[in-house]
């Protein structure tokens, strides 16, 4: 097949062949969106634009609102923002409206409840909307005006991206998760290494990547500038969608290397636990190569990147029978209520609490310095979130290290950055 997976998805939406000249990289196409997603930060802006237009809602089923950033509301302003969305959803009959009680972090929730699925075109007013490529969807982040446009017309214009193929080879060691893989890739190509482009994953190594690993990897596609990330649809996808949608989906045709602008081999067996140091996700270093002890004040395990069940499982396994360091505040945030409940049933929540961590209701909270764990000046955090920009989690002179759940929890126990295999019993 001479077309990328992204081109195949867009072709199916347009009812044309994937090799059609109109889908050449760089061309602009107008496509039907399956879902227009926005949250408590971006939905009020989209609603305002929509209301001023005087147009009718094109299709309430295409609209999804998730109140996840500053919820449960941290202040009066955020309560107002949520109320705007809540009132609009009720008035317009938007069923895919998720408020406290039903909500989870949007990019964990949508796949879990079957709103995000293979072959879909999902457009979100949130930069981490690219997460759903894990299931073989085309998904990308845009501004609020674009979301208003979909609310009015059902459609979105898109530039067909050129693509980079990451050929995953080798078998990763048991201590490696999707987070280590994507940080390694971002470290290799840089924060603008895939600007405008699609990043697509292929190769024998794909089978070692669980659904949760794939969500983490596609979630951070934006951190190397990519428009979207995509995994093939395979048995792992089938197992996931059998549960979330009650069915399985048609496969992509395997794209030839010629369909790509560039092919980069990634040897999974060569990846070791890795961190991204302040202040860019590309500023990576293997944990065992860090030159000095880095003491930490806070650990966050959660977010749209790493708040899923297997993330909590990895963290709980590291903590089991141990206790976090007295000087480290350890905050665990299951990404959805379903994940929370499963973690409770599996005993992970008990492990966290007995081990000296706290467990929060689902929220984006600390990842963007919103609430539930803000950093003071000079404080250092290691976190499973996605951005370590200056001031992202609080004071502009605080320091953020990005890592996998296992590395983050191991560091919480040691009081300094360390990988799980280096912990003393």
């Amino acid at each position: 097949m001479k077309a990328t997976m992204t081109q195949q998805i867009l072709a199916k939406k347009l009812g044309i062949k994937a090799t059609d000249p109109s889908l050449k990289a760089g061309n602009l196409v107008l496509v039907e969106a399956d879902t227009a997603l926005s949250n408590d930060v971006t939905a009020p802006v989209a609603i305002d634009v929509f209301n001023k237009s005087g147009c009718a809602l094109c299709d309430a089923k295409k609209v999804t609102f998730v109140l996840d950033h500053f919820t449960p509301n941290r202040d009066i302003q955020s309560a107002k923002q949520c109320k705007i969305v809540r009132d609009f959803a009720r008035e317009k009959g938007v069923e895919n409206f998720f408020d406290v009680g039903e909500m989870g972090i949007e990019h964990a929730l949508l796949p879990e409840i079957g709103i995000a699925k293979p072959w879909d075109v999902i457009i979100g007013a949130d930069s981490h909307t690219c997460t759903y490529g894990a299931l073989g969807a085309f998904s990308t982040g845009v501004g609020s005006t674009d979301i208003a446009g979909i609310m009015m017309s059902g459609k979105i214009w898109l530039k067909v991206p050129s693509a980079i193929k990451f050929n995953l080879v080798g078998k990763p060691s048991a201590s490696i998760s999707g987070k280590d893989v994507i940080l390694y890739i971002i470290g290799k190509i840089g924060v603008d290494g895939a600007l405008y482009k699609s990043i697509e994953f292929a190769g024998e190594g794909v089978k070692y990547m669980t659904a949760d690993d794939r969500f983490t990897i596609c979630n951070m596609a934006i951190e190397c500038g990519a428009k979207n990330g995509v995994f093939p649809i395979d048995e792992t996808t089938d197992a996931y969608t059998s549960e979330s949608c009650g069915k399985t989906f048609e496969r992509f045709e395997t794209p030839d290397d010629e369909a790509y602008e560039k092919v980069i081999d990634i040897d999974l067996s060569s990846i070791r636990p890795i961190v991204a140091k302040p202040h860019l996700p590309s500023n990576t270093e293997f944990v065992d190569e860090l030159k000095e002890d880095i003491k930490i004040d806070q650990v966050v395990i959660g977010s749209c990147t790493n708040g899923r069940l297997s993330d909590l499982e990895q963290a709980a396994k590291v903590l089991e029978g141990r206790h976090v360091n007295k000087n480290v505040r350890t905050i665990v945030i299951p990404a959805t209520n379903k994940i929370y409940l499963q973690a409770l049933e599996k005993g992970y929540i008990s492990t966290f609490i007995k081990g000296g961590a706290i467990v929060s209701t689902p929220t984006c909270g600390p990842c963007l310095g919103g609430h539930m764990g803000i950093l003071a000046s000079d404080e250092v955090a290691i976190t499973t979130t996605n951005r370590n920009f200056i001031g992202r989690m609080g004071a502009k002179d605080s320091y953020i290290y990005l890592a996998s759940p296992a590395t983050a929890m191991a560091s919480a126990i040691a009081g300094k950055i360390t990988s799980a295999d280096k912990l003393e019993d």
Partner: protein
Amino acid sequence: MIKGKAFKFGDDIDTDIIVPATYLSTFDPKELAKHCMEYTNPEFYGEVKEGDIIVAGKNFGCGSSREHAPIAIKGCGVSIVIAKSFARIFYRNALNIGLYILECPEAVDGINAGDTVEVNVDTGVITNATTGKSWQAAPFPKFIQNIIECGGLINAIKADKFN
């Protein structure tokens, strides 16, 4: 057909250069226009005339996602921005608020400040009327031209021209 005088800018013109953040408290195009390129090219607003053209290097509009940046440029009367490349969000924002943009590195190199430039938006042909040279940029499909002619995405949808 677009015709105007070229104003030249370099690479990586960011959204803070286009309109400094301190002026973001308004969405009024005429107000924003007064501060367009104010810190780096304070004479720009006084000199630019309705229909004139911005010609710039790579990564034009990088930085913030603010829609104020293309609004300020359009508010100055600029008819089109021709650049070697655009930052992704600026690219979307410009078209969504109804500002013509074209990517054509060769044309950027072949146009000097003050040259008179003609652009046929239907064909994507850019002509330097001062030197007589012309270049072919990829033209926009009809639905994008409709967005710009209607004055932006929302207006185009309202006019049933987004199809």
